[in-house]
């Protein structure tokens, strides 16, 4: 059986990948994919920590399923915003969108 630490390590790696993606990519859609990786890192962590020798805690599983559902909604919203941003600016490069800067 694979130990808990492996899961946590996988989760940490996923998390770093997500952050790396967010830090280096300029395309908005790629950044959204990065966010999704980050979320899944959190899910994995959650599930891993809730697993004991007695089995899987159903409450944690429920939360994660709900979170996946909500995450899908969030992604949909983010993509729709991306679409509007593209129509507005004609580009998806985040460095060119500085209008929010004070």
């Amino acid at each position, binding site marked *: 059986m694979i130990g808990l630490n492996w899961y946590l390590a996988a989760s940490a790696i996923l998390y770093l990948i997500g*952050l790396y993606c*967010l*830090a*280096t990519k300029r395309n908005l859609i790629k950044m959204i994919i990065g966010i999704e990786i980050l979320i899944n890192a959190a899910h994995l962590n959650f599930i891993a920590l809730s697993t004991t020798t007695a089995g899987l805690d159903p409450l944690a599983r429920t939360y994660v399923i709900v979170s996946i559902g909500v995450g899908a909604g969030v992604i949909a919203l983010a993509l729709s915003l991306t679409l509007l941003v593209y129509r507005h600016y004609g580009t998806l490069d*985040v*460095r060119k969108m500085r209008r929010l800067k004070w």
Partner: protein
Amino acid sequence: MLPLAPWLCWGIPVIGAILTPLLAKIGHKVRDYGAVLFSIAGFIFGLSMVPDIFTGQVVNWFTGERLGSIPYESKVVWIYELGIEMGVLVDPLSVFMANIAGGLGALIMVYALGYMHGDPDLTRYWFFKNFFIGGMVLLVIANNFLQMFIGWEIVGLCSYALIGFWHKKKEPSPVPDYKTEGEYNAMCGMKAFITTRVGDVALLIAILTIYAATLRAGPRPTFNFLELREQVEWARLLVASGLLVPTIILLFGGPVGKSAQFPLHVWLPEAMAGPTTVSALIHAATMVKAGVYLVARVLPIFVEVFKVIDLTNALYTFSLVVACIGAFTAFLAATMGMVAREVKKVLAYSTISQIGYMMLARGRGGLIGYVAGEIAEGYYAGTFHLMSHAVFKALLFLSAGAVLHATETKDMFEMGGLRQYMPITYKCMFIGALSLAGIPPLSGFWSKETIFDAAWVLAEEAYQHGYAFIGVTGYILLFIAVITAAMTLFYSIRMIAIIFIWPESEYIKEREQKGEHVHEAPPVMWVPLAVLAAVSVIGGLFAPAFQVFMFKGWEGIEIHAPAEIFIKTVASPTIFMTLGAFALGGIPAYYFYWSRKIDPGEFLEKHGFFRTIHSFFYNRWYINDFYTKVIVGGFIKFSNAVYKFFEQGIVDRFNYALAWVVRSFSQAFRKTHTGDLNYNMIAVMLGVIAILLLLLFG
């Protein structure tokens, strides 16, 4: 009584007030007649309590169940330990006042159907009018100070709202300080509200002081009138802490404000800016009597309590203050009334003056209580005058309303010659004016004579018991009262003569040419007038029954037979003074105004002395100007100083400094805000690494 009468007699008008906006959705006729019906229904419940007072037993008419004897209390206790309760008290005074308020209220509502017909804001009018009637009856029928104070404030609010009722009027203002008449009306309402508030605060302090005393001294805290009368510990505690006299003087502050007594009398003349029906009900017949009612309510409590703890000096001080303020106000207002130009102002001054009489009678009652141990004489006199005044003053105001309605001017000197156009109004107003002046056999004569008689009795008793100072005071007060009676006759004749007898003014003639004829009031308006006039004529006949009524439940009061009362009044030593006063006031008034043998204007031209006095009276003894300059002006100056030195100097500066600090701080950090998402994410990453390192090695 009808079931639950003491609750419903004020509950129904309040419910009616709340329903008025709903009824207005159905239709205007429904709203108007509905509002009137609610006030009449409330009055019927109030009236049903009268037989119970006469029999002394409170009986439910429907079930025949005997509920108790007078004084009868019905209450809902909310927090027993704190003495907070809601209750009604059925005793002669409360039933009497409730019927004055409810009965005149209903009558004036009927009159208002005609007077206010077609006004665009009638929903607001009916709402506040019914709310006022409910609040007023609540005030007088409450069994504790707290609930009474709630009613007290309700009527204050309604008074304010109804004085400024015509706040949208666009005509030019009668005084130059404001742009439109509506603005002026609103300011008048505010003046009334703020001036009475001064007294109300004093009253509230006194009520809470008494409550706090019962809280500390036991046996249990209470606001209840009957319990305050039974318990005396609170008074002992107040005496011990030296607060008793200040408390009861502050308690009198409420009546001084609400009943427009000196030094807070300045608001009532301005209150005449409201519709005449409002002036008649609120500022003549009922609300301004709330103060007289309160004094009547607390006086027996004080007499009882002070007798038990043997502290009659406090009673003496209280009564003397009440009597002196009453007498001075009566005189002060009468002098102003003699020179006023507007018909409603004359009536307002006479209201202040007559309430002064009532206060005077109450104070004398207390003083007699001090020297001879019983207050019945002055107590009865004040209450009887309250009744007759409520009737004839409502009559005078409603007649004045009919005149104003027909001529559309407030100035008496723009009227004249109305006798031929408005014969019914003329007769009714004439009866009212004579009753006000105290001409026999009208009701005003009997009540005023009783007051004079009470003063005479006070002086006699005081000498008998060896109180020379009170005796002299009694004679001085009597003298002032008689002089005031002379002035009352003077201004009554002046008012009637100028409005009805003098030749038509240019203004009336102009209106006639324009085709706007002066017309008699419609029946819905003159029928209430006729009812009130009839009551004024036969009012004196009620005196014996009224005495039986008022002293029900009192111990040790001898009730005089009708014939005895008649002889006592007619053959009293003061009758000669009254006749002298009639001569003193009536003869000059007849020559100046009725027969016009001497022209008043020319007379003033010739005699510089009288001209000075005239302008002194006309400017209201400069008291109003003094308040405007010193109190209002002083307050504005104070506010400006606070604005300049505190608001601008300290508060604003602090805010600017705060803003400066924050702005410079953020300027320094501005460079880190690149707006580039990738940099931000790198920062997040560095943060994560830092946390990890902390977790690993920290």
